Structure formats: C-alpha cells, structure tokens
C-alpha cells in the first residue's frame, strides 16, 4: 500500500516538474487579483470607514482643547472667588478687631462707672452710718444726762435720807453710785 502511494507520489511529482512554473513567474490573472484586492479595500475603507473616524478624531481633539479652555475659565473664576473670599475674610477680621478694641474700651468705661457708683454708694452708706451714730450718740447723751440727773436726785435724796455723821456710809454710797455709773457707762 505504502509503496503504491509512494510510487504514485513520485509519478505525480515527475509529471508536475515538467510544467512547473517558476516561483518568480507573474501570471496576469494573479496580478489582477492583487490589484483588485487592494483597490476594493482602499475604495471601501477610504470612502466608507475612514472619513468618519477622521472626523471623529478631529472632533475629539477639538473637544479636548475646548475642555481645556473651559477648565481655564473655571480656574480663573475659582481664583477670583478665592480672592473675594480672602478680601471678605480680611475685612471681617478687621471688623472683629475693631469690635474687640471697642469692647475693651467699653469694659474700662463700665468698670470705671461701676467703681464710681460703688464709691458713691459706699460714701452714702458711710454718711448714713455716721449720721446714725451721731443720732445714737446724741440720744445716748441726752438719755445719759437725764439719767444722771435722776440718779443725782436719787442719790441726793438717799444722802439726805441717811445720817450725815456716818461719813464712811456717805463715802460708801458715793462710791457705789460712781461704780454704778461706771457700770452703766461701760454697758
């Protein structure tokens, strides 16, 4: 079987070699096939497929460039907003500082006012106390004077009521009176 096949192959090869064209031959029909193949691909893609993608790529470039421009505008806007915000912040700080200064001045004034009020009140209290004291003292003095008179009368009547010979008793009565007087004064 194998030998038959090999013999057949050899026979076919021998038959083929006689009419075998060179590999460098250029048959016109193959040449035309190659040219047509290129022209079809070139025609179809050049007319139908590539113009669309060319346009799309151009549009994409444009939109990217447009996007960049828009981003620039947005950045400028953001910068402006930042500047405005910073300015507003600075003025707010200034205002706060002014308010603080004002508050400090106000506080000093309020303290001063309160202090003078307190001083006035203290003076009034002192004056009232002094007046009270003076009144108490005059009252005490008058009461004391009256009592001294009464006591003197009392003492005199007691002295008169007693024997005048008994000097020691008189002296003792006077001493007791004075002691009594002193005890009242101390009270």
């Amino acid at each position, binding site marked *: 079987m*194998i030998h038959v*096949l*090999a013999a*057949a*192959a050899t026979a*076919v*090869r021998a*038959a*083929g*070699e006689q009419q*075998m*064209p*060179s*590999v*460098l*031959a*250029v*048959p*016109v*029909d*193959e*040449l*035309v*096939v*190659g*040219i047509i*193949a*290129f022209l*079809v*691909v*070139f025609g*179809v*893609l*050049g007319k*139908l*497929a*590539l113009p*669309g*993608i*060319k*346009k*799309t*790529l151009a*549009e*994409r470039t444009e*939109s990217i460039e447009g996007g960049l421009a828009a981003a620039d505008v947005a950045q400028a806007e953001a910068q402006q907003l930042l500047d405005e915000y910073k300015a507003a912040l600075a003025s707010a700080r200034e205002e706060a500082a002014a308010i603080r200064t004002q508050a400090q001045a106000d506080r000093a004034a309020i303290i001063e006012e309160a202090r003078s009020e307190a001083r006035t009140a203290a003076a009034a209290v002192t004056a009232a106390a002094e007046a009270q004291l003076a009144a108490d003292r005059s009252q005490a003095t008058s009461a004391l004077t009256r009592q001294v008179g009464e006591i003197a009368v009392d003492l005199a009547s007691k002295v008169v009521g007693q024997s005048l010979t008994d000097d020691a008793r008189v002296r003792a009565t006077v001493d007791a009176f004075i002691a009594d007087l002193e005890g009242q004064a101390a009270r």
Partner: protein
Amino acid sequence: MSADVVLASGGLACHLMSGCGFPAPGAEIFQFNALFTFTIGSLTFNVTKITVLTAIAVVLICGFFLYAFRKPKLVPRGAQNVGELGYLFIRDGIAREAIGEEGDKFVPFLFAFFFLIWLLNFWSIVPFAQIPVTSIFAIPVAFALIVYVTWVPLGIYKQGFGGFFKNMMFPPGVPKAMYILLAPIELISNILVRPFTHSVRLFANMFAGHLLIASFSVAAFYLISASVVGLLGAVASFAVAVALTGFEVLIQALQAYIFTLLAAVYISGALSAEH
C-alpha cells in the same frame, strides 16, 4: 505538482525507515490548482486557494473596519478602540512620520496596504490556510506596481517633469564631477530597481519563512519512525517548526510595516525634493 496535490497524493506516507528519501518541500508548495476558471475577454482567471484567501482577507478587513467605525463616538468603545489604534498607528507612526503634515491625505492608501498585507501574510499561520498569500510573487508585484504608479506621476505633477528627474538625479551637496557617476545610479536605483526591491523584499521574506516552516514540519513528520534518533529528530523538528511559527508572526507584521513605510517614503520624496 501543486501544494494541494502534495497533500492529496499520499506523500505523507513517506517516513525515515520506509525506504523513502526525504521529500524536501520545494517550489511546488507555492503552486495551487485552479478550483475553477473563468474568462473575461482574453484573460483567463484561475481561481485558486490564493484567490479565495485574498477574497476572504478583503472581506474581513472591510467588514471589521466598517463595523468598528460604523458610528464613531467621541468616547470610543470596543471595536472602535482597536480600529482607532490601527488608524493612529498608520497616521502618526507612518504617514506623519514619513510624509509630515501632508501625510494625512495618504492615510487611507497606507492604511489599506498595511492591513491587507498583514492579513495576507497572516494566512501563513492560520490552520488550513497555511500559506502567506504574499509569497506568491504576483501579489507583492501588484502592490509595488500600485505604489509605483502612484508616486512617479505624483512626483512629476508636484515637481514638474524636468524638476522631478533633476531632483532625483542631481541631489545637492555633491561635488559636480560626482554627478557623472551619481546621476545614472540614482536614476536606475529609483526608477528601475526601486519597484523591484519593494516587491521582492516582501515576497522573499514570506516565501522563505513559509518554506522554513514547511521544511521543519515535513521533517518532523518524515522522522517519525521506530528509532530513537528518528523520534528525537522528529520532536526537535516539531519544536523548531513551532518556534518559527512564532517568529513568523513578528515577520508578518514587520514586513507589512516595512512595505507601507517605504510606500510612504516614496510618496514623501515625490511631494518634495529629497535631501
């Protein structure tokens, strides 16, 4: 014999110990039988696996980018993100880089080249496709031809017929006597050699890559046999084929990029005098 015939003919029954020589893959793996043919005028078209893979690639690229860019949004979602990545790569990485501000007009032209060539290269590692369409010489030749008939008339239109050739053949800053040597070299290198190198660079890279992967894959299969050396060799060959496949992924994108970048450089030279 063509690639389809190799697969179908029983060549795969050939192993190390079966009295069979190593069936090294050759030019035949780049030949495909016509699935059907049709004729337009005097030209007969052989519709092969190459034609079918090219058509599928065209449909996939058009389909994907039409879907990705169907309703482009300012904020991209899903497929639009991927599509934009590709668009910006072509616009910023190739058009503006090589041509400058004027490059934006050429973005669709370069875009179509890059993605078409990349996908045609990519078939190399797609199961069942497994052939880089650009390893069929006519395909890179067709592409280089389109670039050639774009930049030459563009240069003549922009710089005038005399100016175009004068700027090309007599670059400034060279001693006058040198022009005797330089002028013919510049003319030949730009007008004759340039389209040839432009197409061969792409073709040869993909051709060689595919041949390498095919060789190691065939070797891995051929070496499977009842011997230690054969099995070790099979495993090693398979590993190399896998590694080369990974490497090809890089080469596929790189060659698509180089072809497109060179197209942009040629256009840039046509728009204004180089140097």
